[in-house]
Each structure stands twice: as C-alpha cells, then as structure tokens.
C-alpha cells in the first residue's frame, strides 16, 4: 500500500477485555516497530520485528502485551485483560533495511485505545 495502515483507528475497551490492534506496513519493508504514545508524551518503544523475527521486545510493559508478525508482513499487537493505564495511542512504523541499517521510519496513523 501507499503507507502504513493501522486498524482500528479508535477502540474503546472495557477494563479486562482483550484487544487486537493490526498494522499493515509498507510493502517490502523488512523492519516493523510498535510504539505506545501517551497524551503529550513522546512515542515509547514496545517491540521490533525484522521480517517475522521479533528481535527486541524489551519495551513491552507486561506479559499482557504480545505482538506477532507470522509471515513477515502484517503485525498484530494484542493486549490481554486491558487496564486503564493501557489507554494510549499505539503507533506502528516500518522501514527498509539497507546494508543492515534501518532507514527512516514511516508511521501509521495509530490506534487510539481507551479503556473504560
């Protein structure tokens, strides 16, 4: 596609509910990143994939957060038993890997998650 696509754009979840957020990266982009952005803050790193391999998941805040990219393209971020502190915008970004160097990151519009 023309850009990084995320769905849904908005999600309201009841506390304790499980949610799944989808990211469709730019075709051919090897690298995929998930970030969490709270209101008025900078994006906080969650996890990084290179193709289907999850190379870094050090930013996932708890074991309720799980991400996958089974075929090296579309990725899903799953949050189990959502809590109010999970309310944030979840950003997905993708980039090319050129000579083992990540180039600029292209961000999707994000999914705004509100836990009530």
């Amino acid at each position, binding site marked *: 596609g023309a850009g990084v696509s995320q769905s849904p754009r908005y999600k309201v979840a009841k506390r304790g509910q499980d949610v799944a957020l989808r990211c469709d990266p730019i075709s051919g982009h090897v690298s995929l*990143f998930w970030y969490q952005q709270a209101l008025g803050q900078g994006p906080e790193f969650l996890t990084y994939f290179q193709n289907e391999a999850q190379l*870094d998941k050090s930013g996932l805040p708890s074991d309720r957060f799980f991400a996958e990219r089974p075929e090296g393209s579309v990725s899903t971020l799953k949050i189990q038993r959502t809590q109010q502190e999970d309310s944030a915008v979840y950003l997905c970004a993708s980039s090319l890997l050129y000579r083992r160097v990540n180039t600029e990151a292209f961000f999707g519009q994000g999914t705004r998650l509100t836990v009530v």
Partner: protein
Amino acid sequence: GQQVMQIPQYQHVQEGEDFTTYCNSSTTLSNIQWYKQRPGGHPVFLIQLVKSGEVKKQKRLTFQFGEAKKNSSLHITATQTTDVGTYFCAGRYGGSQGNLIFGKGTKLSVKP
C-alpha cells in the same frame, strides 16, 4: 537505561522569530533522527544524522549532530504558522538495527 533528553518541553514564539530544540544523550548515539508531529497526526520523518559534527539544512531548518555524537539540535529560522507541531528527536544506540529512543518532544506554537 538509554534515554534521550529533549528541551524545552514547550516553546511559544511570534511568527518570524527563530526556534531551537535540543537533544542530549548520556551515551554515544550511532545516529539520530528528527520527526515532526502535527496535532492529531503521526510522527513524520524529517532527517537522519549519522556523522560526528554533521550539519544538514532543509530550507529554514538546520540540523546539527554534536562532535561526540551525544547531542543534536534543530533550529528553525523565521518561524511560520505552518511550523506548528511537536518536534521529536529519536536516537539509535549500538547497531543501527536497534530501536529508536524518542525524546519527549518540544511543542512549538507560533503566534501570527
């Protein structure tokens, strides 16, 4: 852990004034990127700096990477209302495949 500090948090300027935001890391960065996020939007890539002491210009924007590769700055000359938004620096440590660590951003408002 690795952290990128960015100041100021907010900057209000009159249209036509200059604006500068600064980023600092306690450890050496392999490279640094700058992004702009408009209200309600997503971060949009502006530039990447890789070399020690590098200076790059984009029209009224000047980006610098420090000699020690621990700090960086973005300077906008003669701001316009279209410059409004939050400017983030994002540093990469170690190998260039590593994740980007974002600063908290500088929110710029421009009074016409």
